[in-house]
């Protein structure tokens, strides 16, 4: 059983928003109401006089900061707006007061004067020759959080321009029998984690301590060290339970702002955003994707080109990596002899784009899998057969120089088809496949400490965000130490006690941290054996693990006995430690990706022809995960991801009108509900034990989000005769398409 679940169902789990620190004050952020403007004046005098107000942080407080701007690819984002704002929702002040209510009330008294500037409301406007520039200069930083450097273009709004090329597309198109080109759009999407962003910061003699609902605590630590001119050793980040993230709490978000407020206040400050504010903090990058495929006379694919333009919002954040991955994820599990995919990400005056479950994946797969069905329809071929003719096999290259494919796409496709065949007409099913290369850095460390009473503590930076990582780590350590599950305790991630880890995201924790704790537990075992060997004067070959202690020769000793014999008192511990690096396990982790995260999805839908309301009737999702380390948790990851896919397929849309967010509010932003979920739902996990992780596991948790939208669109096209190319597929859009078809037919 997962150790977190008992605490969660009984109300005992302490989430970041539940944490309280002695003497803390509360901060409320004042946000820009303008999409692009100069700040020409700010009056905080009324707010300062309000009851219980401690201080007000503004852009004038740059003396508190060693570095005023931060970022992951570019140092493009001010800790707090100084003279200019670039999106509606950008922090311009933080009102700190003794109570949350006091901070909220006083925050409404801050008056800001803006002088509006011309805006880039859309990527098209941002790309136009005469568009206003959001950032005057680019200050790229390399290998900071992701490997590599963003390829932005100075003097434009383009902050990433990536090209993936293979073979000779021009010649292929020249010799083609037919060429198909379609264009698809994908909206900005809110993460909508149930717990909004929250952080607490405290400066004291030891330095800076931050409690945060962060997925990447070490990135937060690194950025805070730079912003405040502190050694990394003096910045401590602690992460309790986090109420959902999905990438929206990855890299760094509100922590520099909260820490700046705490520095000014001279006491700890907690900032808990509202759900609405979280929607103004980050979002998935929207995209416009044009895709073109050339086929020969037999309908075999000769080449594919893709042009991806992503709406990156006001600050780059991890957008350059999102764009790069979208290019990779547009390829699909198909033989494409010639390939040219360009992915650009541009600044616009909207909420900053950021990582979101399978970065760039849903956008790319939406386009490429809709396009595959459109080609099959044009060729008069069954989409399963058309895909089958082009499917890659295990061991094939998806992208040159990356690890060969480690799954069998045909097996996955067949499983999805099979699960949705019962009682349904084959012709009505919508199908989608996907392959993605998770951006996992094989860098992690862990400590496993065995105490005299037999309890075991595990220290790692992997964040329990709902995926069940604590249960997985607990199981691996318990099995490696041959101890019962309940003696293994997973501590809250704390940079002061756990080794460096890249972060919780990209489907990596069970696999990479799983390997790290396994190695650390093995290290603890060898230290225990060495100690027993020394104390009891035995060969280590005569020693084995037993619940609560060791078997030595023909007798058992408890850990307490061991330490008693070793130390003279019955106290002590053994600390196992391990690091995973690209050179671990003879370098077998060095090649990217560590595994291919793949997906097959199939569904049937029904449509109310009078209203365009679509209902998902049947859904099957297939994932090849190597080994399920916790089956309900693994299934739950798949199902939850697919339902997030249902959200952007049918409902969700962060709309900006001239930079003003129109739906960034829970009342106006429709996420999937229980009544949207069909009873006929199948989750297939393929387990061949062929992953590089513990017990043959691969990473997982992202694949399920990929196939839903194109599978629904393909089912709509096949069963109802309408092809939707813009998400979300709202009833109005479907009704409009159905009406156009009726008009066309008559």
């Amino acid at each position, binding site marked *: 059983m997962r150790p977190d679940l008992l605490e969660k169902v*009984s109300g005992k789990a302490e989430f970041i928003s539940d944490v309280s620190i002695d003497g803390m004050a509360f901060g409320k952020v004042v946000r820009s109401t303008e999409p692009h403007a100069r700040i020409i004046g700010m009056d905080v005098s009324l707010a300062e006089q309000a009851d219980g107000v401690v201080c007000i942080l503004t852009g004038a407080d740059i003396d508190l900061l060693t570095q005023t701007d931060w970022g992951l690819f570019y140092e493009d984002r001010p800790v707090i707006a100084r003279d200019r704002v670039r999106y509606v929702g950008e922090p311009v002040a933080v009102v700190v007061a003794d109570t949350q209510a006091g901070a909220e009330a006083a925050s409404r008294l801050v008056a800001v004067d803006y002088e509006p500037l011309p805006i880039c409301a859309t990527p098209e406007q941002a790309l136009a020759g005469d568009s206003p520039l959001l950032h005057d200069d680019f200050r790229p930083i390399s290998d900071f959080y992701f490997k590599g450097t963003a390829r932005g273009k100075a003097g434009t709004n383009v902050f990433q321009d990536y090209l993936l090329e293979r073979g000779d597309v021009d010649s292929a198109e020249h010799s083609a029998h037919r060429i198909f080109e379609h264009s698809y759009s994908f909206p900005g999407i809110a993460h909508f984690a*149930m717990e909004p962003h929250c952080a607490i910061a405290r400066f004291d003699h030891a330095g800076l301590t931050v409690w945060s609902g962060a997925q990447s605590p070490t990135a937060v630590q690194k950025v805070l060290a730079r912003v405040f001119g502190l050694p990394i050793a003096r910045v401590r980040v602690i992460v309790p339970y986090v109420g959902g993230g999905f990438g929206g709490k990855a890299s760094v978000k509100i922590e520099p702002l909260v820490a700046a407020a705490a520095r000014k206040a001279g006491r700890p400050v907690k900032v808990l955003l509202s759900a609405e504010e979280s929607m103004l903090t980050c979002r998935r990058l929207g995209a416009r994707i044009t895709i073109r495929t050339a086929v020969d006379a037999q309908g075999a694919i000769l080449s594919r080109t893709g042009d991806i333009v992503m709406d990156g919002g006001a600050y780059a954040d991890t957008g350059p990596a999102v764009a790069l991955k979208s290019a990779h994820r547009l390829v699909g599990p198909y033989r494409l002899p010639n390939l040219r995919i360009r992915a650009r990400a541009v600044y616009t005056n909207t909420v900053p784009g950021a990582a979101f479950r399978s970065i760039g994946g849903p956008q790319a797969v939406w386009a490429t899998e809709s396009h595959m069905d459109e080609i099959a329809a044009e060729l008069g071929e069954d989409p399963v057969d058309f895909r089958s003719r082009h499917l890659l096999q295990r061991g094939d290259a998806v992208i040159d120089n990356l690890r060969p494919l480690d799954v069998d796409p045909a097996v996955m496709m067949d499983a999805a088809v099979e699960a949705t065949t019962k009682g349904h007409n084959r012709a009505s099913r919508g199908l989608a496949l996907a392959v993605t290369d998770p951006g996992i850095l094989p860098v992690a460390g862990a400590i496993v400490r065995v105490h005299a009473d037999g309890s075991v503590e595990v220290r790692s930076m992997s964040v329990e965000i709902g995926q069940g990582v604590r249960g997985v780590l607990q199981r691996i350590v318990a099995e490696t130490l041959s101890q019962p599950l309940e003696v293994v305790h997973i501590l809250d991630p704390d940079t002061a006690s756990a080794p460096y880890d890249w972060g919780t995201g990209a489907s990596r924790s069970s696999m990479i941290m799983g390997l790290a704790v396994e190695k650390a537990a093995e290290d603890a075992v060898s230290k225990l054996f060495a100690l027993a060997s020394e104390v009891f004067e035995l060969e280590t070959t005569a020693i084995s693990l037993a619940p609560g202690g060791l078997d030595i020769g023909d007798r058992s000793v408890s850990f307490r006995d061991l330490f008693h014999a070793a130390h003279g008192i019955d106290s002590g511990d053994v600390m196992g430690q391990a690091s995973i690096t690209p050179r671990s396990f003879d370098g077998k982790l060095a090649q990217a990706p560590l595994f291919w995260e793949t997906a097959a999805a199939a569904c049937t839908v029904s449509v109310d022809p009078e209203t365009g309301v679509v209902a998902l009737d049947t859904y099957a999702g297939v994932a090849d995960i190597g080994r399920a380390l916790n089956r309900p948790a693994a299934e739950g990851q798949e199902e939850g991801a697919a339902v997030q896919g249902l959200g952007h397929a049918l409902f969700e849309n962060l709309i900006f009108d001239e930079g003003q967010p129109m739906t960034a509010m829970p009342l106006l932003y429709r996420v999937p509900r229980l009544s949207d979920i069909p009873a006929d739902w199948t989750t297939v996990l393929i387990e061949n034990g062929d992953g590089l992780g513990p017990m043959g596991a691969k990473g997982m948790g992202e694949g399920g989000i990929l196939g839903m939208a194109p599978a629904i669109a393909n089912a709509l096209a096949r069963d109802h005769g309408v092809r939707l190319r813009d998400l979300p597929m709202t009833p109005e859009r479907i009704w409009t398409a159905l009406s156009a078809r009726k008009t066309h037919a008559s």
Partner: protein
Amino acid sequence: MDTCVDISVEINGVPVSRSVPAETLLIDFLRDDLGLRSVKLSCDMEICGACTVLVDDLPVSSCTTLAADVDGAAVTTVEGLITDGALDPLQQAFIDHGAVQCGFCTPGFILAAKALLLRNPSPTRAEIVSALDGNICRCTGYTKIVEAVLHAASA
């Protein structure tokens, strides 16, 4: 000029009497005054159900209820479903079926399901959907939540 309101309420079976400012929201009263941190603040506009508590066995959004409104009533949070250290069958079913991921929506879901089972001990899937459709979970995809409630009802 604000006023305080005297309220007497039974919280998880324990009588509580307090004087609170009239504008005090039930969620703040439960979390801040009484330390019942299982009551979660999420959407803050009555649509997500994370702040659900039972008032006289019926679910309400504590984010948009005054503490004064529960004067004379019995309020239940998930802490109150545990009797003599034993979990309620619904709590156990949520664990057994993996109906919990991040856990932030979980107390609200369990209470909404509890209210359903109190008035309808063997609901159909459709009745469960209707009763829980107003609670949002962003992690699980809901399937395992339905399984858990069906199982708890049949146990």
